[in-house]
């Protein structure tokens, strides 16, 4: 009987073991238990926004900033990170890494936005909450398609979460369809988003941000009439913000590029950078991830332990000096954007003469650098990337009017930007082409190091002309195909339904 008892115990213990084969992760929520509460959707939105500043894949992360700026006629990149050097000298190809990362980032955000858009209607949240989450996710999805169209042209449009493995292999749509997707998402976002948020929610997409990008999306498609409609909702013909918006240029240009200028009156949309979360800016998406950026460290000179990856060209250095500001001084935007050997020039609390210009050009970057500190500290910069400023809206609005043959109406708009730059009011009587020339000049100065130059030149059809007419290293290798990135090899390798872009 004793052995029988033993065997009974044994049998029971074995039955218990079988249950242990059903293990559930103690570390994560299972997907089927998610997408129920407001907190779930808010978490999902955070995960969608954050892709923009991802260290590897973020369009506004360090590699994204280096790539979007580095290909302009105003920047050079040294051959430290080979991929960046190849991109900046137009010797890149489909296997060059960074565009593949950015492409991955755009679709990561789209996948996440699609999860929100699909799951919100299935939840039992109030309709108003659902609408808000869907509109916000559509803003983010639209913005990612906007950047995809700008950079890659013809790409797949994905608006659903894949269910089966066969859903992974999407086909391309023409660039016009990608723009149309961006436009429809941004229109929906503009209709569903609030004009502003309470202080605790600042940083989320607003109606103004959606309208601004909607207008820009039309500008890129040269649909001037629709662009004008969008900008009209943001600004009065005088350049004063249209109610209910309160946008205004910051009194000092440089206030936009310092830490204290985050989320200011001029800003329609920013990428939020702050040293919160973990302590590692390179950690990737996990608890260790520090939520600032290392871009400023990459751009800082070696004398302050920076990695001196880039230099401004002398072309932009000279462009800043083309027109003097009032009192025969230089354009204050030049001092905010660059540092060079001028009397009393300081940089990182040291005289500029302490620094060596190792690229053979005359200046270094100040904009977005923490150059009033001794160095870039722990490499993590907290200055938000001002992705869409009111100055951009004013200049694009002016351009939209000019391109429709109404340069006279552009005056009040461009003069606001000029006035802030301590430039005199523009002389009257500019025709459309003179006004465009002035707008091009202003945009080059106003948006230096803001990732716009290359794409402005592209939509103006001036890419080849202006790059060849510059002192940029590698300019001789520029050809028309460089207007778009090639479809990344990583996509070609895995997706039989995709074709390479023309010329690549």
């Amino acid at each position: 009987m004793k052995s029988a008892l033993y065997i009974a115990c044994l049998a029971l213990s074995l039955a218990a073991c079988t249950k242990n084969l059903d293990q559930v992760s103690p570390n994560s929520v299972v997907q089927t238990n998610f997408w129920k509460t407001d907190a779930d959707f808010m978490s999902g939105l955070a995960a969608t926004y954050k892709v923009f500043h991802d260290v590897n894949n973020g369009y506004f992360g360090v590699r994204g900033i280096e790539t979007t700026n580095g290909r302009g006629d105003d920047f050079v990149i040294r051959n430290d990170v080979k991929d960046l050097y190849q991109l900046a000298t137009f010797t890149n190809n489909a296997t060059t890494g960074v565009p593949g990362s950015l492409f991955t980032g755009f679709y990561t955000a789209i996948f996440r936005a699609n999860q929100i858009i699909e799951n919100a209607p299935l939840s039992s949240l109030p309709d108003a909450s659902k609408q808000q989450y869907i509109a916000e996710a559509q803003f983010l999805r639209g913005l990612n398609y906007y950047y995809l169209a700008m950079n890659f042209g013809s790409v797949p449009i994905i608006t659903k979460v894949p269910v089966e493995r066969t859903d992974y292999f999407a086909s391309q749509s023409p660039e016009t369809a990608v723009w149309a997707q961006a436009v429809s998402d941004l229109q929906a976002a503009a209709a569903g988003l609030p004009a502003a948020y309470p202080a605790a929610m600042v940083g989320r997409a607003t109606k103004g941000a959606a309208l601004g990008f909607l207008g820009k999306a039309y500008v890129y498609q040269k649909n001037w009439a629709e662009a004008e409609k969008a900008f009209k909702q943001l600004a009065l013909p005088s350049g004063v913000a249209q109610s209910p918006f309160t946008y205004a240029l910051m009194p000092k240009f440089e206030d936009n590029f310092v830490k204290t200028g985050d989320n200011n009156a001029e800003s329609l949309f920013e990428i939020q950078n702050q040293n919160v979360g973990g302590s590692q800016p390179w950690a990737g998406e996990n608890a260790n991830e520090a939520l600032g950026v290392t871009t400023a460290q990459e751009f800082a000179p070696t004398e302050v332990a920076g990695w001196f990856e880039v230099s401004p060209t002398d072309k932009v250095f000279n462009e800043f000096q083309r027109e003097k500001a009032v009192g025969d001084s230089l354009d204050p935007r030049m001092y905010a954007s660059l540092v060079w050997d001028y009397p009393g020039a300081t940089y990182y609390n040291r005289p500029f003469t302490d620094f060596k210009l190792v690229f053979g050009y005359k200046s270094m970057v100040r904009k977005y650098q923490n150059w009033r500190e001794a160095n870039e500290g722990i490499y993590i910069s907290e200055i938000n990337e001002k992705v869409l400023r009111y100055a951009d809206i004013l200049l694009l609005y002016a351009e939209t009017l000019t391109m429709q043959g109404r340069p006279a109406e552009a005056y009040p708009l461009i003069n606001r930007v000029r006035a802030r730059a301590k430039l005199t009011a523009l002389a009257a009587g500019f025709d459309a082409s003179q006004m465009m020339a002035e707008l091009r000049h202003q945009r080059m100065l106003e948006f230096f190091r803001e990732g716009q130059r290359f794409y402005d030149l592209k939509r103006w059809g001036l890419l080849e002309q202006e790059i060849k007419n510059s002192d940029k290293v590698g300019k001789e290798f520029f050809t028309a195909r460089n207007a778009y990135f090639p479809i990344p090899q990583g996509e070609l390798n895995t997706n039989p339904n995709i074709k390479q872009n023309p010329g690549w």
Partner: protein
Amino acid sequence: MKNVTLPKGGLWCLLLLLWSMAGAYAQGTTVTGKITDASGVGLPGVTVLLKGTSVGTATDVGGNYSLAVPNPATGVLLFSFVGYKAQEAAIGGRSTVGAALAPDTEALGEVVVVGYGTQRRQDVTGAISSIKAEDIRTQGSNTVQKSLQGRVAGVQIESAGGDPGSGVRILVRGAGSLNNNNPLYIVDGVQVDNINNLNPTDIASLDILKDASAAAIYGSRAANGVVLITTKSGKKGENRIDVGGYVGAQQIAHKIKVLNASEWAGVSNAAHDNAGLPRLDIAKNPETLGAGTDWQKEIYRVAPMQNYTAAASGGGDNFTYSLSGAYLDQQGIVKQTDYNRWNLRLKTDFTKGRFRVGETVILTKEYWRGMAGGWGGQGGNPVGSALKMIPVYGVYAPDAVGGYAGAYGPVVNVANPVAQLNLEKPETNSTAAIINAFAEVSLFKGLKYRFNVGYTNTFGAYNDYTSPYALGDLKGQNALFNNADADLFQNRSQMNYFLQEHTLNYGTVVGKHSINALAGYTYQNTKYEILSGSKSGMPTGIQQLDAGITNIASGGNAYQSALLSYLGRLVYSYDDRYVITGTFRRDGSSRFGPAYKYGNFPSIALAWNVANEQFFKSALGVVSNFKLRASYGILGNQEINDYRYIPLIASNTNYVIGQDQHLWSGAIQTTFSTPNIKWETSKTVDVGTDLGFFDNKLNLTLDYFVRQNSDVLLQVPIPLTTGASGSPPYVNAGQITNKGIEAGLAYNHKVGDFTYQVTGTFTAIANNVDFLGTGTQQIFGGQPTHHGASATVTEAGGPIGAFYLIRTDGIFNSQDEVNAHSQDGKLIQPSAKPGDVRFVDANGDGQIDQNDRQYCGSPTPKFTYGFGTNAAWKNFDLSLFFQGTQGNKIYNGAREDLEGMNLEFNYSPATLNAWTPDNHTNFPRAVINDPNLNSQTSDRFLESGSYLRLRTLQLGYTLSKNLLTSAKISSCRIYLSFDNLFTITKYTGFNPDLGRYNAGSPGGGILDRGVDFPHVAYPLARNSLLGVQLSF
């Protein structure tokens, strides 16, 4: 009893039945005795076997044995030993049975440990390699595996360099998986993660189950082979004490030559001049710079090591015991690095009537002082930094924070390696307990039930403290590396493994028929958890988290998995001529979804002892042993991460929100899951033969195998457009085949006082990926430098981790040659200038890019081999062992960096011979910025990895008995031993024996195998030891 519901009826009814029948069985007894040679001298290592069973033991050094025998009245003992005729003796109820063996026996009768039991060598049907304690000259190796290098046919062992306490990569019959390729380690019945922490002198035998038949009893965990380790037991009637110790010194075997300060400045200036860029300030006036700092000299040292072992063992009629302790302290050849280990092991065995109980308890405490990683710079660890650090810079800066100087100016941020070593202190303390206890009951004649409980616990404590520093000029200004606050990172991890096993073992002999049957049930459960925390800003001298004030972070996670299995084995032997083994295991795993949890792993094997056939007797004069074996079986691999079949929400996908910019915690699905993933299966066909010649003086084992791994668990890359391509879902998507031959040879001979043994092993394995994922699937791996492109591609038609590289085709000697390298009137390399490298446009698309990569070789050797000799003459003994590989390639990442001249760090002496317009060499021109990408990852830096190494040379002297008797010492041996005395190779890096084992990456970094990345390297040491072994 009627109320009990039995879950798996059949087995448990059987168990019950057998239990109730057990009363009929009579008690066994223990037989002891001494086995001598013809002259009466005790013979050690003689196999003593109870005829017709698997019950056996071996004699100790004095020739004494002790064996528990269930049938003392009728039993017959069989004594056998290499070079002697086997002898039988009926026990006839005696408790002492001795024998004097006559030389020149017919066949070998040793016992081999197989899973859940032992077998006579002649009954073995599978491919099993056995290593006995005396075969391992472990004195010079701190781990067991390193001493096995080249000694086991079919097993490739690659060291990961000279890091004390480091692991190795062991591949049993090639790499079959893209996941875990580690064999399953079983120590005295308990599964362990690795065997690095065992004391080598505690090991009695090591049996490696290589083919599916041998390993099938371990089912889903056995696809990569099984290593069974049996630790030493006490011997009845022989209480003894063994102590041993050695002291030694290690030094770096091979340094990589780099430029001195003045040479470097010359190359740097040329590179800047050619690029039209201003020269570096620090490179002005090369002639005044002299030699500068020899950074390698600054970090390496002659490092001492010492090891002490003590063991007491013995036993009485009904018990044996073995108690041993060991201490090892091995400082590393890189300054500051250190490893020490304490071992304590107890193994006892106790018999009372029909019951037998026993246990093994192994306790280990280990300490590592590692070295810093990269500090965010481009030099990597101190080994990598010492290569790249410019010799112009100095080591110390007493006035700087931290006290060290460093690189400054517009140069690449390579950290001062001496500062790295001294200012960051990564330490690991680990304690491990391996406990196994069993109770065995003889139910009736031939039938035993065994209950086995295993438990392992590993606790790890990692502390990494970094002091504040500013590594710049002598005042600490212009520092490229700054750390304002002290940092402390700590983690604590714990792993528990629990095992319970119930097995029934039945053996009987009826006439010429012998049957051995095994049935069992096992359950095992593994739990892992980790907790981490870090802070910065501790006051000087304080290294506790409480004192930290900034950068506060914490984390933790846990994993659990379970495996539930049924197993069975039947061995049938007829007349010692024909043996058939059938094995079956059914495993259930928590790693797979409900419909895919269970897998079946059957195998079958046949052996034919041809030498025992009547018709063969005439050949016995020359051929003394001849066995043919064949086996086929299916094994599994389930070594993927837990919980991959359910879609999960990833937390900490965070962002920032609010005017105050606070953390906005994010969570979302970031990956896809695959509900239908299942086991990898590995099907192996093995045919082999065991041959003995000249009365088994010469023994040869040959095996041919085909191992096909299908349903390989693979993260098949999915399109980037899915938005979840970062971690693709696992699918069963590939097939990998390893085909190979392996041979082992041993020759023993004795001429007067001179005895010697010559051994050799040979392994040739061809690895091929048959198909992967979607057909054109490529998996990239093998990053060789900080920013370098991957060097290896795994794709259908080639071996795992094969080198696919852009090929080079010499140097352009003129602009005409640059212009001629064109397609359709367009230059293929528009950035090239005379003196640049000509790359091959393999796909003919008129440009050079990663699509031009071609197959350039494999990291898998065509063959590996080992050979050596053990010889003794009077009181002297000599052991020599060579080992090597042939036909493998290594990508030399150090050369890609040091020969690039594209960036501001130190260079290789080869750059002194760079192409100039006046001196056309085959080494590209110096040009900073490298517009032609001469330094990109290409076949320029791929080298032959073949080598032949004198692995061990040991010379011993045993003091004569007369001398010792008065001191009551039974034996005393003194020896001098050398490891890695020389290596013959064309490879120019630190060390061609390069595991680059990385526990953190897929498959232990199998895709990085053969890629030498100095940022993570630790060069191999050459060791010299003086030791003594004493027995009382």
